[in-house]
């Protein structure tokens, strides 16, 4: 009987390595930086390539107590949701690698307010920051320009850049040496196209993180999952404009499903509310990590713990 050899596949491409944040030496104030990317094979196939960095976990915090979050989440965080600095500290204590500051939409959301909020978060945590506007183009542009200036030297990730609104954010990131998050709607070609548009403005590709978008478990995760697998395969086959680390937001997606939000009036077969909700977030996130996510943005502290354990088990 002939011996079976381990079937190793040869990949010509490599995902770019991207570093978030900057320490004092690098001109910032972060106590650590986070590097993702650098893969030369599919997720966690250590036998055939390099996987130099584990996927990173970002924890989403809000500048205001979120009005529409599930009680399961609010209970888990407790009082810190009322104070963005306390929340940033708590996120770090709960094991985040990165803090994602998501601005909510409200009347006080001005450039000055955004500057102050950024200052407060920077002073509360030493982790690298991702800063997202509320998702309304004019307001996003106004506050992200201010954030870019205020956060000079910190190597922030600014978002969200979409094909309809990216120029102002990219220009601000370019001017102050930050990075950007490029989001497209679950489509390989749209993702490549936006990466090209952003790099055409002079943004080095090493400073773009792509966000191919995902659906939650049960709400279209299979689309995001397959688009991410295809993007990663294309990257490994040498397609330069797909060789970017991927960020996805399973926390946001999972926590807006009925499964995560509804505790009453649901079938008994759905089981215990909190456990089901956390499973919804972690299984969404875990599945996307297996398909190539480099950064997952989570919401529940228990999810951070479980996803961390999974990442450690896949890396070590």
């Amino acid at each position: 009987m002939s011996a079976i050899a381990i079937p190793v596949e040869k990949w010509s491409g490599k995902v770019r390595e991207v570093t978030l944040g900057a320490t004092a030496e690098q001109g910032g104030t972060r106590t650590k930086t986070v590097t993702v990317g650098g893969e030369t094979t599919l997720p966690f196939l250590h036998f055939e390539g390099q996987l130099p960095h584990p996927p990173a976990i970002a924890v989403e915090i809000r500048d205001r107590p979120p009005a529409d979050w599930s009680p399961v989440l609010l209970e888990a965080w407790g009082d810190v949701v009322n104070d963005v600095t306390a929340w940033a500290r708590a996120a770090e204590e709960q094991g985040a690698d990165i803090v994602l500051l998501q601005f909510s939409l409200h009347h006080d959301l001005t450039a000055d307010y955004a500057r102050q909020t950024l200052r407060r978060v920077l002073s509360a945590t030493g982790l690298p920051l991702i800063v997202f506007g509320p998702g309304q183009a004019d307001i996003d542009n106004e506050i992200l320009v201010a954030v870019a200036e205020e956060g000079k030297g910190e190597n922030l990730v600014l978002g969200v850049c979409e094909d309809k609104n990216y120029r102002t954010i990219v220009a601000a990131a370019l001017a102050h040496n930050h990075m950007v998050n490029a989001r497209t709607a679950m489509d390989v070609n749209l993702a490549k196209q936006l990466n090209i548009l952003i790099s055409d403005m002079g943004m080095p590709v090493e400073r773009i993180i792509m966000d191919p978008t995902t659906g939650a478990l049960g709400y279209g995760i299979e689309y995001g999952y397959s688009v991410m697998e295809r993007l990663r395969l294309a990257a490994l086959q040498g397609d330069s404009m797909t060789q970017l680390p991927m960020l996805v937001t399973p926390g946001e997606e999972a926590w807006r499903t009925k499964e995560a939000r509804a505790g009453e009036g649901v079938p008994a077969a759905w089981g215990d509310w909190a456990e089901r909700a956390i499973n919804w977030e972690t299984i969404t996130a875990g599945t996307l990590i297996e398909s190539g996510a480099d950064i997952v943005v989570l919401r529940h502290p228990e999810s951070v713990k479980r996803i961390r354990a999974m990442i450690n088990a896949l890396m070590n």
Partner: protein
Amino acid sequence: MALSGIQIYKLLPASSKNPEVKKHANCKECGFPTCLAFAMKLAQKQAELAQCPYVEEESKAQLEASAAPPIRLITLSADGRKLEVGNETVMFRHEKTFFHPPGLFVRVKDTQPDAAEVAKAVAGYAVEYVGMDLTLDGIAVEADGGDFAATVAAVKAASSLPLILLTEDPAAAEAGLKAAAGVRVLLWAATPDNWQAMAGLAKQYNAALAVRPAETDLNALAGLAEQVKNAGVEDIVLDPACRDFRTSLQTFTQLRRLALKHGERRVGYPILAFAGNDPLLAGQHIAKYGGFIILDSFSPATVYPLLVLRANIFTDPQKPIQVQPGVYEINNPKPSDPLMVTTNFSITYFSVANELESSGLPGWLLVADAEGMSVLTAWAAGKFDAERIAKAVNNNGLAEKLAHKRLIIPGHVAVLMGELEEELPGWEINVGPREAVDLPNYLKMQWG
């Protein structure tokens, strides 16, 4: 690889060099006029090789090997419940589709007093998801020093589900197999120490047999599979003896590649995976090549998301699940009740319909033909624009059916408002919430 009719003909009696076989050339006993005609039918899978009593052993082996799928289909069954696993053809679901969802089993021990109750709960579990009833597939009964035969019998009686018997002791295995009479079980495990006895039992009791080497090693695994195959067992399942995330992902990927891309028959079988109590590990096995997955406990809050993940991963990517376009009446609406429009992607439809139904609010849900895409995707692709929505409103005679002319559109396509007002003169277009979950609140606040 499948053989052509001519290639098969060369293996039949008419082409034989052995006069004893050659004399049966074109004997018609197979029911076809010539060996060539029979060969053609075999190539088209419209005939069975067993119809020829004279085919030589060597030819038979070649023909059977050529006809076999790269990953053998394994069937377990009980009382009308059937589970088929294997027969996969691709590494990634976007390349074609994944065909046979892995079986999800819950483990009970023969030392566990509530084994039969757990089995009953597992068998009775069903959860609705986009119009489908999702269920678990079976019970894995472990011999742990208790009364194995009695536990198997009790589990069988309580569940009527396919079973996996977990024991390395041939005596316990035989007792369990006897108690499981009538159920097609998977027996775990044939090891380097007991494989002869286990293979004998699998043959005698027509069970599928899982092989498990002493440690994770492709050659040890393939060798063991080959040994039990040579002992006459056809339905083999691989347990590569890994239990952690990293080794499982790597080894399962290697086995799938070997079977699909390297034509390695020795490992062309489904994989048995143990997920312990970790839903994330079970999730990995669902997405990455597990065939039979054993969970150590049963909890609805865990199995519901896993069953949904399995349904999602095993959806045919070329055929999004669609619902019929048209008007759906939710909670017996009157002509004065609100009208909402969404797309015919099943997940979109069910998200909206479920919210409305559970809120108890009556309403008319207009489902436009968006070729099975979700709201945002369809809008981006031009399949859910003002023209299509207007057409759906007009074709369904809603102006006549309703006592008002107000249409609520999804918040994600608020930009369509102006165009829609042009396309639907006399109608008032309202922008609803972006997410279905916010619809009941919106209706309570906005619909007076």
